[in-house]
C-alpha cells in the first residue's frame, strides 16, 4: 500500500514538474538492483547493465572483499536485491553462514568449476561424521585469468537477462563489448607470458595462481603484506628460495613499503605492482588497472 502511494505521488510529481520519462523511471527505482561481491564483478555489471542497473558493492572502501563479512544490515539489503552476483570459487567465505535467496544468486565461476585450482597443504583435522578431512581451499582470484573473467562476465550477463529478458539484446551487445576489451588484455598478457617464459618470478601473496597458469608464469609465492616488514625467518626462507628460484622481480598487490622494497633490492629483487583490483580503484577502472599491471610487468627486468 505504501509502495502504491509512493508510486502515485512520484507519478504526480513527475507530471506537475514535467519530468522526462527517464527521470520517472529513476523515481520508480525501475533499475535492476544488482549486488556484487567484488569490484571486477561490479565493473562487469556496470558495463553490461549500463544505466539500467544499480550496482552495489557492499564492502566498505579500503577493505578487501575476500575478507569482508556482511553484517545483518548488509544481509538485509542484499536480500532485497534483484540479483546477487558472486565470484564463487570459495571467494565468499561468509555465504554459507547467512540467509540469501538462492534464486537471486549467480555463481559467476560455476561454469568453470573443473578448472578451479586447489590449494595444497591445507590443515587437516578430525571431527564430525566425515572423520579425518582437510579444509582444502580453492584459489579464488579467478578473474586474473582474463579468459575466465570473460566467462564470469557472461554468467553475470545471463543472470541479468533472466531478470530483464526484454532487454536481452542490449545486455548481450554490452557484454560483447566488454568481452572484446577483456580479450585485448588477455592477448597482451599471453604475449607477455610468452616473452617471460620460464623466467622465475616471485609473488608476495598467494593470489596469482590463475594468472600464472593462464600466462605460463614461473611464479612462486610467499605470504607477505605490502606494509608489514616480514620477520627474519621469512627472509631466510626467501634466500633459500632464491637459490633454487633466482627471481629478479616480486609482484605485489600494492606498492610495498620503501623499507621492504629496499631490502629486496639488496638481494637483486625489484618490486612491481600487479593489483588484482578486488576493490574499486581510487582512479580509473578495471581495464585501466589491468593495463597498468601489464605495463608494470613489462617493465620488470
Amino acid at each position, binding site marked *: 500500500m505504501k509502495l502504491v502511494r509512493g508510486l502515485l505521488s512520484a507519478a504526480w510529481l513527475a507530471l506537475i514538474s514535467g519530468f522526462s520519462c527517464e527521470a520517472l523511471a529513476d523515481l520508480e527505482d525501475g533499475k535492476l538492483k544488482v549486488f556484487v561481491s567484488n569490484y571486477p564483478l561490479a565493473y562487469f555489471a556496470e558495463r553490461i547493465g549500463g544505466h539500467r542497473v544499480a550496482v552495489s558493492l557492499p564492502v566498505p572502501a579500503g577493505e578487501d572483499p575476500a575478507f569482508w*563479512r556482511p553484517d*545483518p544490515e548488509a544481509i538485509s539489503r542484499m536480500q532485497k536485491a534483484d540479483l546477487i552476483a558472486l565470484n564463487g570459487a570459495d571467494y565468499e567465505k561468509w555465504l*554459507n*553462514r547467512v*540467509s540469501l535467496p*538462492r534464486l537471486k544468486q549467480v555463481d559467476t565461476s560455476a561454469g568453470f568449476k573443473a578448472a578451479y585450482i586447489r590449494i595444497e597443504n591445507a590443515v587437516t583435522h*578430525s*571431527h564430525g561424521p566425515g572423520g*579425518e578431512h582437510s579444509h582444502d581451499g580453492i584459489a579464488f582470484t579467478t578473474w586474473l585469468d582474463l579468459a575466465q573473467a570473460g566467462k564470469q562476465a557472461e554468467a553475470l550477463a545471463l543472470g541479468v537477462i533472466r531478470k530483464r529478458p526484454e532487454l536481452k539484446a542490449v545486455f548481450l551487445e554490452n557484454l560483447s563489448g566488454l568481452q572484446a576489451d577483456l580479450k585485448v588484455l588477455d592477448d597482451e598478457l599471453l604475449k607477455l607470458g610468452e616473452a617471460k617464459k620460464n623466467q622465475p618470478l616471485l609473488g608476495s601473496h598467494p593470489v596469482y595462481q590463475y594468472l600464472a597458469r593462464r600466462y605460463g608464469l614461473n611464479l612462486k609465492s610467499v605470504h607477505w603484506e605490502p606494509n608489514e616488514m616480514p620477520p627474519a625467518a621469512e627472509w631466510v626462507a626467501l634466500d633459500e628460495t632464491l637459490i633454487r628460484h633466482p627471481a629478479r622481480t616480486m609482484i605485489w598487490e600494492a606498492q610495498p613499503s620503501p623499507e621492504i622494497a629496499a631490502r629486496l633490492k639488496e638481494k637483486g629483487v625489484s618490486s612491481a605492482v600487479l593489483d588484482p583490483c578486488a576493490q574499486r580503484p581510487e582512479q580509473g577502472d578495471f581495464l585501466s588497472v589491468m593495463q597498468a599491471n601489464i605495463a608494470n610487468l613489462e617493465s620488470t627486468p
Partner: protein
Amino acid sequence: MRNDFYLAWRYLGFHKTRTLIIVTCLSLIAILPVALHFLLNEGNRQMTTRAAATPLLIGARGSALDLTLNALFFGAVSPSITLVEADKVTATGWADALPIYSRLRVLGQPLVGVTLDYFDYRGLRVAQGQMLAMLGECVLGAAAAEALKLKPGDSLPTPPESLFDLAGNYPLKLRVAGVLARTHTPDDQAIFIDLQTAWVIDGIGHGHAEQKNLPERSAGPFGFAEINRAADGKLPTYTEITADNIDSFHFHGDPGGFPISAVIALPHDRKSATLLRGRYVDQGEKIQIVQPQENLRGLLDNIFRVGALFDGLLAVVGGVTSLALGLVFALSLRLRQGEIRTNTLLGCGRLMVARLLAAELVLLLLVSGGLCLVLLEAIRRYAGDIVRYALIS
C-alpha cells in the same frame, strides 16, 4: 399468548435435567452433519488451494501422497533426497527450484528448512522482528509463535531426543529472529530455518573452538557438546551460534550431497512443466515428480466418500433419535395426565392445554436452534485451525 410461553418456560425451567437432555439431543442431531460438512469443505479448500499453488514436487520415489503431505503440510515424513536435485531443476532453465527440508518437530511444531525464496513464493511477511539473516536463526509462523509463547529475540532449543543421533547430533539453540504474519495456511504452524541451519542440526555443518584456546567448558545444557568420533579427534562443538563463533562454522563436503526432503518446482510456463515432467519419466530408480493437485484429488475423493457414508449413518441415527424423542414426549404426556387434569379443573379448555404443550415444543426447538447457531458459528470460525491442526499432526 405470552402467558402460554411464560408458563411453558417455567415448566421447562422446573424440569431442568429433562429439558437439557432433550435440547442436547436435538442440537447434536442437527449439528453433526452440518459440522462434518463444514470441516470437509474447509479441508478440501485448504488442500486444494495449497496444492494448486504448488505446481510440481520432486522427491524420493515412494508414496507420492507422503511426499505431497510432507512438502505441503509438513506432515508425513518422506525419505530424503539431496540438494543436487534442486540444482538439476534450475539447470534445465524450465523452472525455479525451492528446496524444502521438513523432518523434525520441536514441541509439536514442524521445523522446516527452506531457502529465503520460499517466503517470497508463499507471500510470507515478517510481522514482528526480522527475516532470517544469520545461521542459527528461525522465524515462526503466527500459530507456532502463539503455541510456543515466543517472540523475536527469544531462543528455542531443538530437543536432542527428536533427532536421529547417528552423527552425534546435539541440541542447537535457535534464535527467534521474527514472527510471520498470519496467512491461515499450514505455514502458520511452522518454525522456519534456513536450509543451512537445518544441516547444522543434522551435524553436517558445525563450528568448533580452536584447540589452543579452549573456552571453559560450561556445565549447562548449552555449553559444549562433545562429539565422540574417532578417538584422536574430540573437538568440542558449539551448540549455539553467536556473533563470536559464527566464523568457525563450516560444512563438510559438497552441498549438492546434503539432504532435503523435496523440491518445489515452479515451471516458467506450461510447456516447461511438460518438459520437466518428461525428464523424470525414465528416471526409474530414485526420484519422482508429482503434481500435488492430482495426488490430493484421490485423497479428497476418498474423504468425501467417507463423508457421504457418514451422512447416511447420521440420517438413520437422526431418524431413530426423532422417534425416540417423540416417544419421550408421548410418554411425558401420559405422566402429566394429573397436571393436565388440574389445568382443566382450573378452567382451561382442551385448546388451551394444547397451546401450552405446543409452546413448550416451540421453546425447546428455539433453544436447540440457538445453541446450534452458536456452535456452528464457533465451528465455522475455528474450522481453518482445526483442519490445519489435523493436517499437520
